[in-house]
């Protein structure tokens, strides 16, 4: 929707689509310059931090999974890590490996969803994947098959694709057998090929020439690409524990949004997610992922937000390869869960959700009841940077007619795969030209 014309204009796109949740976006242009941008999240708040108070710490994984149906494993894993940290428990390596396998399933499911159903249609001028399928059915079917493989891992290890039932503080209710996990090998081999084909496919899209000046923040853990654990690192030299990072992050509440805006103390905004993980960890990628990235023309760092779709595809290759590696080395943990005795303390857990760093912090009492909870999802952390991107992309695209400018702005937001359901714990575009 547009208002005004020429150098002063207001473009409004109401009901931002192909993102998870409800929000809006507004760009105001004055005298040919982008004057103001605002990303508003009007997803109704659900008050998870409040409803967790007084609950058993053991309930945190299942309750917080319900923050997001797209990345429930991320919530379960960060919740488990935080509670175990509070109780001073370190789990067996076999449990960590099984968690990582489950998490690979979520990355595959979520990345395939975003690449094929939410993001690729933008580059090909389609309203959605259904229209895309009319033009290129084999590509959409390849994406759906990849997504199915991710879900299959989640069902095999987690018991269910959405809100898995097998995760508990300390580990799992039941460890799948070697044979059950082995059934995943064939679909994963096909998925690995499909993921490599995905990188080549999205690598051939046309990308607007935009570079962001990002402060990247991601987990880093020596010798492997980060998923379920690590220290928090940044592109400007930060290296700290999850607890240390949680202390640095301040969240601000602005009137237009039910998602809190996170910054590192000292008022620094930052970006988490695939671009950040890749920039800080690309040297840890296994050969097939490294090779696919090279073939698609990606360097060790990518700062064009539109090319995040290529980085996501490279992470798909990684996740399929990593899942195969974990299955080849799989030994069922016995017992499937560590005993986690309650302890009055504070614990922090940070893991890499498909959309970026997700941290939980719980203060527990001596009976294992949650006294206070703090949950910081990736979209809250990325919100300020997404607005900067929106400003940059809008400014570089002012020659476009309003409807195309609106669509371009939507893309600037979708580049970061925002999960508004998580963040309000968006999308509706307004471009105003005056």
């Amino acid at each position, binding site marked *: 929707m547009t208002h005004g014309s020429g150098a002063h204009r207001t473009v409004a796109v109401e*009901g*931002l*689509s*192909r*993102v*998870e*949740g*409800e929000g809006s976006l507004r760009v105001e242009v004055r005298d040919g310059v982008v004057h103001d941008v605002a990303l508003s999240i009007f997803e*109704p*708040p*659900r*008050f*998870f*931090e*409040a*409803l967790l*108070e007084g*609950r*058993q710490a053991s*309930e945190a994984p*299942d*309750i917080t999974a*319900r*923050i*997001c*149906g*797209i990345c*429930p494993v991320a919530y379960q894993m960060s919740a488990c890590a935080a509670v175990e940290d509070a109780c001073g428990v370190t789990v067996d390596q076999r449990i960590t490996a099984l968690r990582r396998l489950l998490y690979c399933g979520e990355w595959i499911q979520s990345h395939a*969803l975003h690449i094929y*159903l939410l993001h690729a*249609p933008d580059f090909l001028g389609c*309203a*959605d994947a*259904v*229209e895309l*399928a009319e033009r290129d059915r084999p590509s*959409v*079917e390849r994406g*759906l*098959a990849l*997504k*199915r493989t991710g*879900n299959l891992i989640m069902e095999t290890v987690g*018991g269910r*694709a*959405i*809100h898995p*039932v*097998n995760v*508990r503080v300390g580990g799992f*209710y*039941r460890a799948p057998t070697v044979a059950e996990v082995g059934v995943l090998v064939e679909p994963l081999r096909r998925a690995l090929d499909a993921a490599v084909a995905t990188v080549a496919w999205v690598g051939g899209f046309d990308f607007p020439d935009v570079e962001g000046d990002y402060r990247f923040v991601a987990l880093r853990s020596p010798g492997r690409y980060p998923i379920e654990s690590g220290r928090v690192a940044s592109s400007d030299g930060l290296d700290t524990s999850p607890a240390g990072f949680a202390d640095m992050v301040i969240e*601000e*509440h602005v009137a237009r949004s*039910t998602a809190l805006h996170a910054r590192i103390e000292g008022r620094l905004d930052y970006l988490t997610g695939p671009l950040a993980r890749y920039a800080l960890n690309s040297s840890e990628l296994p050969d097939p992922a490294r090779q696919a990235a090279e073939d698609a023309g990606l360097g060790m760092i990518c700062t064009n937000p539109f090319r995040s779709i290529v980085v996501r595809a490279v992470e798909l290759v990684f996740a399929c390869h990593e899942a195969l590696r974990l299955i080849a080395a799989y030994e069922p943990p016995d017992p499937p869960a560590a005993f986690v005795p309650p302890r009055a303390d504070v614990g922090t857990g940070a893991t890499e959700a498909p959309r970026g760093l997700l941290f939980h912090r719980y203060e527990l009492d001596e009976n294992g009841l949650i006294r206070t909870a703090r949950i910081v999802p990736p979209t809250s952390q990325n919100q300020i940077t997404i607005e900067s991107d929106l400003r940059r992309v809008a400014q570089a695209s002012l020659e476009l007619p309003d409807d195309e400018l609106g*669509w371009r702005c*939507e893309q600037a937001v979708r580049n970061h795969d925002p*999960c508004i*359901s998580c963040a309000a*714990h968006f999308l509706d575009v307004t471009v105003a030209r005056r």
Partner: protein
Amino acid sequence: MTDTRPTLAVWKFASCDGCQLSLLDCEDELLAITGAVRIAHFTEMSRAHVEGPYDVSLVEGSITTEADAERIREVRRSSRRLITIGACATAGGIQALRNFAEDGAYASTVYPHPEFVSSLDTSTPISGHVAVDLELQGCPIDRRQLLEVIAAELVGRRPVIPGYTVCQQCKGRGTVCLLVSKGTACLGPVTRAGCGALCPSIGRGCYGCFGPSEGANPEALAGRLLSEGMAPVDASRLFATFYVGNPVFGNQATALAAAETGLAEQEEQST
């Protein structure tokens, strides 16, 4: 050529997106579904929006704001059939725990400026606001049940959705009863089937994520849980999760919480 396919709209209120994701999780059937129905409004999936009226609306999420209470009335007016999907839409979801808290207490815990947040003090099901034609239960809903509902709508028949308990599905699977054999707390005897009795099959008690079954007797189950040595407060929490907004579970949770308070008072008097 005019498009004669029936139109389907998907609407979101306060929720996690998981139930509408179940539609996209029908990977093998998705393109067949979009061949048989025209997706007219589904913001998670498409930029395209076709004006109503719609033949079928699927509604996810609960009503937690004044604006959403108005929006659901508009959705109802533009929908021939309105089907609610999931625990949020059918019972208020986990966020209905706020219904049991002091007014405004939740907003001030989460937000530094609660005055920026326009939110009701309750989370209520869609049926509390408009007439609903069919409710599909689950947190999340089961993908196969969703396909059954869509298929039934297409031919105008009633969907085959069981109202019996998880217990019966456990028997069907041959899972040994956890409550009887190990004393594990399990809501299977009062919870609606639909998930496939997943939790007991991995040695975990059912946690009630499909809500109460038809004719559920939670009081009898609560008595059994207490006789197994469970504290009333723990049993109360078990009933007070994703279906706390359904009175069958919510009232039982309240009764058990009251029993805990009663016990604490007795202890205080005896010391």
